[in-house]
């Protein structure tokens, strides 16, 4: 994975749970390209129509809390988001993002550095998030090697393929 990411920012506030990302009524849908049409249907209706590959979500505290549904990060990954950055993440959501190859980066207080529509630049291995529009920068500790390996492989499926020798 390219360790330098740049994209337009969508902002979300604190405690956005997975029910708000993908409502329970869509949980029988498996196809991520179908799911992406319903992302944040009530919370941010224009997102599913206007979000572009490479866009970046900047969220507040405990992003992705609630149900463990992988539908939520799968739908975000299907849009081709560059990364999700948050003040903090819910645990399973964070793991699901990483395992699907979607970079999830925790940076305390990052939400206050961004407004919707700003341009963000993220360097995964150097560990910084820049708000290019406002000229601000925040740093984060580089991701552990194990996590970078999963992201580099493009997700857990490819990592296991390598391990099993089926790649």
């Amino acid at each position, binding site marked *: 994975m390219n360790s330098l990411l740049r994209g337009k920012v969508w902002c979300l506030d604190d*405690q956005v*749970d997975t*029910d*708000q990302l993908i*409502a*329970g*009524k869509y*949980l*029988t*849908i*498996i196809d991520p390209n179908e799911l992406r049409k319903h992302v944040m249907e*009530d919370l941010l209706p224009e997102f599913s129509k206007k979000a572009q590959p490479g866009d970046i979500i900047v969220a507040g*505290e*405990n992003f992705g*809390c*609630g*149900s*463990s*549904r*992988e*539908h939520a*990060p*799968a739908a975000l990954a299907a849009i081709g988001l560059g990364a999700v950055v948050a003040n*903090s*993440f*819910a*645990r*399973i959501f964070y*793991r*699901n993002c990483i*395992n*699907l190859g979607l970079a999830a980066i925790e940076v305390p207080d990052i939400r206050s550095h961004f407004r919707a529509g700003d341009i963000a630049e993220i360097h995964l291995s150097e560990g910084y998030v820049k708000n290019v529009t406002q000229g601000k920068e925040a740093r984060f500790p580089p991701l*552990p090697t*194990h*996590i970078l390996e999963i992201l580099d492989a493009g*997700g*857990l*499926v490819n990592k*296991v*393929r390598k*391990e*099993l020798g*089926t790649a």
Partner: protein
Amino acid sequence: MSGQTLAQKILERASGHAGPRPGEIVVGKVDLAMGHEQGAQAIAPFLQMGAPRVWDPDRVVIAIDHWVPASTEGAAKLHQMLRHFSAEYHLPHFYDVGNHGICHQMLAENGWVVPGDLAVGTDSHTNMLGAMGAFAVGIGPTEFAAVLATGKIWLKVPSSIKINLKGTLGKGVYAKDIVLKVLSQVKTDGARYKALEYHGSTAEGLSMSERFTLSNMTTEMGAKAGMFLPDATTNEYLRSIAKHESHPLLPDADATYEKEYSFDMNGMEPQVACPHSPDNVRPISEVVKEHVKVDQVFLGSCTNARMDDLREAAGIFRGHKVAPGVRFIVSPASTQIYNQCLKEGLIELFTQGGAVFTNSSCSACFGGNMGIIAPDEVCASTSNRNFPGRMGSTKGKIYLMSPAAVALTAIRGEISDPREVL
């Protein structure tokens, strides 16, 4: 080196990595892997991974529960995928329609998780099995696929929080009230990435069913695992049902906890989690004063639909009717519990009072199957989450409380304090 927490002890055993420290990533051997409907999403990645077989079919349980029997074509397809997959990969432990129940309850009452285990499941409330003294953790379908392929999972060793519980529960105060009280302090993100251990005389005195309720809602605190220390109560529960040998572990007396909380149960009143967060907890006496009218009452979910819950609610509901204009939905946590209710006459007791007694499933808890609420409706529920839209309309309101409290609420049509009738 200072002592280890229960999480460290179990992950040390699972990974073979001596003295794992919080923050370290270890790769652990899984003792039990459970998949529910979300497990169907693991099939495609499993096939892509190219594993020739499932690592250990005797360590894999499939338990469908969200839409049982299937209520939509989409759900029917998920069930079909799981049936085909289980047949093709020789997975014998499939709890299918007719022998079904909420996945965590099926693991519990069939002895699939024992002390010292590292257990994973595709549902966020897999934490419930931490009551066995196991490290039980919810995972996503892609990592479930990796577990099916390899029997292993990467985990960041969590730091731990110690919850000390002392004192005696008063009349009308239950395990649900304890966990809501804990949530009121720890909050929905206070245990994020962390493991939680319940200690103290109150914890030791709880039944397994009550421990399940407390471990279950550590998920709402963001916890990776919520554990009790295995003891005689655990052993007695598992005595005739354990599916594999237990290897009980206990935290060291000098283990390091990131944080400790203490709660005194003496004099604590019933608690209610008000809309729209499980940590928005208030004493029931305050809520009762506001005369909160309800449209629906739900007695069910993996949190609170075991025999003790249903008996307690039945004791209050006996001889009464559901208030006019109110729907009362009762859904037992497993078919075994359903059958026991049948034997004890509880089904008739509820239905003659105007309640709906459904087959076992997640039912109204998650807003995707039955018992869905409309805009502006209010539901009193024994389940575990009350986020906007959790049970249907995002304009609905959900109050979480104990089985006894919802039973009286169903009779009176407004949120009520069970102590008034006990």
